């Protein structure tokens, strides 16, 4: 295992080393010590490596991730896994605002709670939150799946496109054009697979599905107040 201590190694050196890993690298396991809330840890990775950050991270940890698995043993600051393309990011603690924002692919697992704007403008990423999520989550979410084992805050899925939202607990309020939808067998299968991959012990039948009413896609004068 490669071990890098951020108390003695500059952040750019760490990220350069991680970003330099090729597809067939034999240095597949990395451990980062003393993150102490630093920003932009393990960003822009593009190799099938496993990186464990021992502690809590600041802004934009694991942003733009491709292929890599990044695990944070503490909590993550704003914008964790922002614009992820593929791979897996796992946060053992909580995640701050806009976790997984604009993500195109891969899986983001948050074992604690996520705060506001989780999955904002998600474009294909799958996000599983074991706890609760804050307000304005999945705002303008375009595709992918957001799974919440706890409760969701205000204005869930406002101006939603085609992302699927699965919530087991309560939803404080739904955003504009977001509605509860029927849970069909194919949705149960998608959800079961995501729960398995996220290590979540939950029964898919306990969840409700929310999606777009598709009334904001085109201008309609009757909906002027909703724009």
């Amino acid at each position: 295992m490669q071990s890098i201590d951020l108390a003695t190694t500059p952040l750019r050196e760490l990220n350069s080393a991680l970003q330099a890993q090729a597809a067939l690298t034999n240095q597949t396991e990395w451990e980062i010590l003393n993150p102490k809330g630093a920003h932009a840890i393990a960003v822009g990775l593009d190799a099938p490596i496993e990186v464990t950050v021992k502690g809590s991270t600041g802004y934009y940890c694991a942003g733009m991730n491709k292929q890599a698995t990044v695990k944070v043993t503490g909590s993550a600051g704003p914008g964790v896994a922002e614009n992820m393309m593929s791979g897996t990011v796992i946060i053992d603690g909580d995640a701050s605002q806009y976790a997984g924002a604009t993500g195109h692919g891969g899986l983001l697992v948050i074992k604690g709670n996520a705060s506001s704007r989780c999955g904002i403008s998600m474009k294909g990423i799958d996000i599983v939150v074991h706890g609760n999520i804050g307000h304005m989550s999945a705002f303008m979410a375009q595709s992918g799946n957001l799974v919440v084992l706890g409760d969701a805050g205000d204005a869930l899925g406002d101006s939603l496109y085609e992302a699927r939202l699965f919530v087991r607990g309560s939803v404080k309020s739904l955003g504009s054009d977001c509605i509860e939808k029927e849970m069909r067998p194919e949705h149960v299968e998608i959800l079961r697979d995501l729960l398995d991959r996220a290590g979540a012990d939950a029964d898919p039948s306990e969840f409700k599905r929310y999606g777009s009413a598709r009334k904001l896609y085109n201008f309609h004068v009757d909906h002027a107040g909703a724009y």
Partner: protein
Amino acid sequence: MCGIVGLFLKNEGLRPKLGDMLTDMLITMTDRGPDSAGIAIYGDEAGALKMTVQSDTPDATFHGLDVALSHALEGPVNMRVIDTHAVLTLPEGTEAQARAFMVEKGIRIMGAGHSMEIFKEVGLPKDVAARFHLRQMGGSHGIGHTRMATESAVTTMGAHPFSTGDDQCLVHNGSLSNHNAMRRVLTEKGFAPQTHNDTEVAACYISSRLAEGANLGEALEGTLDDLDGFFTFVVGTKNGFGVVRDPIACKPAVMAETEDYVAFGSEYRALANLPGIETARVWEPEPATVYFWER
């Protein structure tokens, strides 16, 4: 962007280290606010009224100030000069008179109270901390701020914390959009802000509510109804420490609590070196939710 740090001690044994701990937290927040920095520190009560004042020409202005003020107030005055600031200890009941004296002499008043002292200047947090020897200061609680200016000029008076009532201070990350209207309302109530800064309006708002009999929690609750804009506020009083974020909550905030302290940071980085942080309860304050501690 601005940086906020705060520390409210529960363990009295840590009091001599308050300034040292807060200084590290403040310097960590330099890249959130390199324009100016300030700190309000609540120390031991002097048993008398304290007033912190500032001058750009301290050598000339503070020379003989204690004697002149003592004559004017007809009572004993002690003075401790620290760089551009001086902390004056005044006879009870002379605050209004002392304030008028300072205004007449063109000396800026940073704040007054029985416990609180305020030090703030333009410059990098590490330089401001060194000038005022913040590391050597002790106390029960303190609040610090690193400013990236948006709403008014980068000056000493535009630096945070703002104090608009005895032993009261407020720091802010964000920007208010109804501060001009609120400024008029507060001026009519007798809580006129002294600067063009939006944050001072929020400080005056809290002072007005406390003066009307609200407790700290109720005053903070009122900001959610009456102030419009982006804000994370951290407020100090003689016995208390409070936090509130606006309902949108895009200005970051992290809190930590152990048996020894309650700590606030704009980012976790500011808290990362506090003793016992590994096992502290660390959380992000909820939007539109008031948190306060009083002793």
